[in-house]
């Protein structure tokens, strides 16, 4: 029987802005050590070991069912590892795919951003005036304060993605887990969200971004490849090689025309 895993959590830096590292090890924002994850008796992800430091952007690549969402559930503390250890600083912010939210829910963009404040409040407290101000500030930061009163479900995909980013900003999470944030976005929205992510990393937030876009992943600091187990982890130039991508995606890898590297055939559905 495997050892039960553990999740180590510390309170986030109350000052908000991250301080310079005292040493490389103290600079780690989120890490896994030999983590295996299971749903009941079925192990869906094995032997995950990585560490991402403050201000780094790590792409999490893998096919549908490869374990990306399962890993995120472990990092938020929703799923306990059956083996190994998760090290996460307080609560990670989650930016899900927008279609996972209830688009028929009668809430405004401001209401959604304000939900980020709930994570900092005990369950019997309601968000107050300061929280509303923080929600407006977060919406302004993502360029949507003018649309604060619009119904969330009426916004475009890119706008909804930015509202969910604003929710994570109000949460003041130092580590953000983004689940395919560019899925279904047009070029302009993609550029906007990309710029926001660059800004967030520059101010010291750590980003883990689940994606199928190999080309995009080349622009980030680290890449974690998953396919039921960890396939590779490291800088893009070491991990985004044809053998690694083939082990990660199998037959879904295609060579792009004109020497443009390799790409992944678009997925048809998304589960764990």
């Amino acid at each position, binding site marked *: 029987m495997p050892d039960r895993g553990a999740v180590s959590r510390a309170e986030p830096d109350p000052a908000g802005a991250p301080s310079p590292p005292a040493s490389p090890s103290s600079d780690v924002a989120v890490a896994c050590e030999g983590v295996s994850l299971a749903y009941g008796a079925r192990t869906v992800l094995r032997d995950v070991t990585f560490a991402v430091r403050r201000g780094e952007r790590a792409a999490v690549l893998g096919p549908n069912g490869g374990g990306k969402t399962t890993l995120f*559930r472990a990092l*938020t*503390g*929703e799923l306990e590892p059956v083996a190994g250890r998760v090290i996460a600083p307080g*609560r*990670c*912010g*989650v930016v*899900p795919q927008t279609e*996972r*939210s*209830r688009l028929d*829910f*009668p*809430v*405004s963009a401001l*209401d*959604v951003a304000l*939900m*980020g404040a*709930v*994570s900092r*409040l005990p*369950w*019997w*407290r*309601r*968000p107050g005036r300061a929280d509303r101000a923080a929600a407006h500030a977060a919406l302004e930061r993502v360029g949507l304060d003018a649309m604060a009163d619009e*119904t969330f479900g009426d916004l475009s995909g890119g706008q909804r993605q930015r509202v969910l980013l604003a929710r994570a900003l109000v*949460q003041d999470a130092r580590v953000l*887990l983004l689940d395919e944030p560019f899925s279904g976005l047009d070029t302009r929205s993609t550029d906007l969200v990309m710029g926001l992510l660059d800004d967030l990393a520059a101010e010291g937030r750590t980003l883990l971004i689940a994606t199928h876009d190999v080309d995009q992943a080349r622009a980030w600091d680290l890449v974690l490849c998953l396919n039921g187990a960890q396939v590779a982890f490291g800088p893009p130039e070491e991990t985004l090689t044809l053998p690694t991508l083939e082990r990660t995606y199998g037959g879904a890898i295609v060579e792009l025309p004109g020497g443009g590297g390799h790409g992944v055939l678009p997925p048809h559905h998304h589960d764990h």
Partner: protein
Amino acid sequence: MLDWLLDPWSDPINLRALVEVVALGATGGALGCWIVFYRLAYSAESLAHALLPGLVVASLAGAPLVVGGAAGLIVAALAVAVAGRTPAIGHDTAVAVVVTGLLGLGALLALSPDTPARLQELLFGDVLGVTDADLVLAAGLGAIVLGALVVLHPSLLVVGFDRSSAPALGRAPLVVDVALGILVALAILVAVQGLGNLLVVAVLVAPAAAARQVTRRVPTMMAAAVAIAVAAGIAGLYASFYLDTAAGASIAAALVLAYAAAHAARAVRGARRA
């Protein structure tokens, strides 16, 4: 005209019924919004039907109906939980089997020759027969439900909007689901006194469904649902008084008419925009 409006309330029976429908409307209208958001209408209806044996046994034993209703709810919830764990049977099927079984058992108990049970009263309620004690109970349970909704509002919103991200925001969906389930059970206990266990779902679902058609935000929807539930309750009592119809059924009919009117209003508004 004023006499026409005031006449029904000169009778203490109707006045008590008025207080009862206001309490039911406030509780059912507000809670109903979360029942609609969480897609619990079928579960709420099922629980209301499945508590019939508890009501019948309480009626036979001369015990307060609320005690029998509470016991019936607990038995129904446990039966659904156990049946739902049966492999190859989905939750909906399990609920349907349990509800049919318990409703049948309740009818069997009530119709046996040795029992003087008032099955019709239990099924369709007797809002004109509520006592002062019933009103105190309805107001008390209603206040608990409404107070809990105020406190739980942010958690209900977070889980209802985005269940998968709720744990990252510090709200466990299971805990919120259980809390909402308890509130629904309490509301059914309140409403079953006046509307009976067949019509109770009308006050828990129809006002919220109607309000959803004409509002765009959760707080306004809750306010509109309460207003619709109270107004339909009062309209039902007027209909009962002047048309000599059954009060519970008249209230349920008024609630359904309110939903139809709201739906039509939305359709007209949509057509004008197009």
